[in-house]
């Protein structure tokens, strides 16, 4: 009955109530989004680095190298010679080396030339079909299979570069031979094939001087489109005499990056300097770069978090003011309840419940709104980065703390008004009414 009265009371002054709820909702929503985003972001980022100690690639921004080769979100820094990379890949310190060659894309999904080690690294099992063996056989990520509705045996043409609108390479088609399981990692959004497929797609060895086989370098797309027109004829000839399949042993080819896992941890420390001094390549550590990235984001996240706590404080003050202001007009009501047999502490509880109800309602709306916001963020991140968040995840611990914090704000805001209601002098109130 007290709770019912409290509920009626908060809706009796709807404007005050709505203001408080809006403030609470927005602060809870911001914090919820931050909590979910931070956790899922870190999870995704960290799960992709597992087993990659260093990345070998062309010189440039190390962060860019990591983003492009590990997370597939940025343009690559450039290409490296496969022959010189092999020297380091076969080094005794190295436990496993996975070469990557960036190919084309199919409807915006990257086609990545690599070895089957790549699938193993991401623990992506083949759910249907088999792994790629021959050139132009591809294994597609679980997400792609779902989104593009591709099946085993389907064939498609890649578009040049990383833009879905790129020129279509229609002289070779890729054939889907396997579909990988969903892993929640980048591999879900990749089309994987052998490295020689990427080489062959862009012309054989002889054409090397004329155009670069892979697309590491910026600004190279447009020229290549033109070249293709000129060399259309060449291509046809090649595809005839290229009956012998290209293999990884081909000399003088280029790749984009190599993911390295070390046997000897010394390498992780010493290689960055050794390679920078002795070659035209660089190695970058995903752990360090991701840390750097997260700390850069961190400033923004912290700022948002402080903003959210600020709004929560304001909502507390708003509840306090609303309760305190109405206290004067409600004195008579309180006195009346006491005359009817209500005890002092029942009035205290009434005021407390009113405030806490607001907080609970605000928290519920905030949690929902936060998840809607995350859904929107997720769908735009999905479009731009092939990176999605799960809005239905509940982080019980952090959100529980947030709930308690919200209740605490409500408790604190109601404390003084509740004590005033508790101390109300009924006789004086009624005599002055």
């Amino acid at each position, binding site marked *: 009955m007290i709770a019912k*009265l409290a509920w009626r009371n908060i809706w009796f002054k709807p404007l005050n109530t709505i203001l408080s709820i809006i403030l609470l909702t927005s602060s809870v929503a911001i914090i919820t989004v931050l909590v979910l985003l931070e956790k899922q972001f870190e999870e995704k980022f960290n799960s992709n680095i597992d087993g990659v100690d260093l990345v070998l690639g062309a010189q440039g921004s190390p962060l860019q190298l990591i983003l492009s080769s590990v997370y597939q979100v940025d343009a690559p820094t450039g290409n490296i010679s496969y022959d010189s990379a092999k020297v380091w890949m076969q080094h005794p310190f190295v436990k496993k080396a996975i070469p990557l060659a960036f190919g084309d894309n199919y409807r915006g999904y990257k086609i990545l030339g690599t070895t089957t080690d790549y699938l193993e690294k991401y623990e992506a099992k083949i759910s249907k079909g088999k792994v790629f063996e021959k050139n132009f056989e591809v294994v597609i990520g679980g997400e792609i299979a779902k989104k593009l509705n591709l099946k085993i045996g389907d064939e498609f043409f890649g578009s040049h570069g990383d833009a879905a609108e790129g020129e279509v390479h229609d002289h070779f088609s890729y054939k889907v031979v396997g579909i990988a399981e969903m892993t929640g990692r980048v591999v879900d959004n990749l089309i994987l094939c052998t490295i020689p497929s990427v080489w062959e797609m862009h012309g054989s060895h002889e054409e090397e001087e004329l155009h670069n086989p892979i697309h590491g370098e910026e600004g190279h797309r447009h020229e290549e489109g033109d070249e293709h027109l000129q060399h259309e004829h060449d291509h046809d000839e090649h595809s005839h005499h290229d009956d012998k399949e290209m293999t990884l042993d081909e000399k003088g080819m280029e790749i984009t990056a190599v993911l390295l896992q070390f046997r000897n941890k010394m390498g992780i420390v010493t290689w960055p300097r050794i390679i920078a001094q002795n070659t035209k390549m660089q190695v970058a550590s995903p752990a360090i770069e991701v840390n750097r990235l997260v700390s850069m984001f961190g400033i923004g996240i912290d700022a948002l978090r402080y903003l959210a706590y600020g709004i929560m404080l304001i909502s507390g003050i708003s509840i306090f003011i609303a309760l305190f202001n109405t206290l004067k007009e409600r004195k*008579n*009501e309180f006195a009346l*309840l006491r005359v*009817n047999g*209500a005890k002092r502490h029942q009035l205290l509880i009434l005021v407390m419940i009113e405030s806490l109800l607001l907080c609970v309602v605000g928290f519920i709306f905030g949690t929902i709104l936060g998840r809607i916001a995350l859904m929107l963020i997720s769908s735009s991140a999905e479009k731009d980065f092939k990176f999605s968040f799960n809005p239905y995840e509940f982080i019980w611990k952090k959100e529980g703390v947030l709930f308690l914090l919200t209740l605490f704000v409500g408790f604190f805001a109601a404390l003084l008004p509740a004590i005033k209601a508790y101390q109300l002098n009924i*006789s004086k109130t*009624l005599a002055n009414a």
Partner: protein
Amino acid sequence: MISTKNITFSYNKEQSFILPDLHCDAGSTILITGDSGKGKTTYLHILAGLLHPTTGAITIDDTDIVTLSESKNDKFRGQNIGIVFQKSHFVSALTVLENLEMASWLASGKKNSNRAKKLLEQLSITNQSDKLPNQLSIGQQQRVSIARALMNEPKVLLADEPTSSLDDKNAEKVIELLTSLSKENKAALIIVTHDSRIKEKFSNRITLV
């Protein structure tokens, strides 16, 4: 039945009251009159247990309410004393019917809807029962106050200037309802007033001087 003995009360050293003894049986009425500042409302609040007298005893049936602890006093008041105020106070967020139910819930823990509906019918305001109190006229509000005071079948019904804000017709009606309903409910009725319109109707009068 309510009776008092040797009640004194003081707000501070300068202002103290010695209040006359009274005795009122169930079903009968006492009128307390007197000029402003003579302690009429104070006396009523003491009788209701809202103020604690400096000395004296107030016996309602067999209970001396002066000796009760505060929370017992709250409970006793809820169950045994009904009060009608000069200006009607309500819980403004609740409907008329819910206001009455609240009165019985606070006293007994049960929502006595049947009793509430019966009283509203007796006071011929049944059609207002789902309205909010401030949507009613002053006369109707005063009738709802009477209904609320009678919700828990009190032994004592106290009325503080119940007619002062009403016109002649409504005043007469309210007094009539108070007396008839207190008789029907076997409650001792004590009316505090300076309203000359109703003084003449009652023979049993105490004047504070």
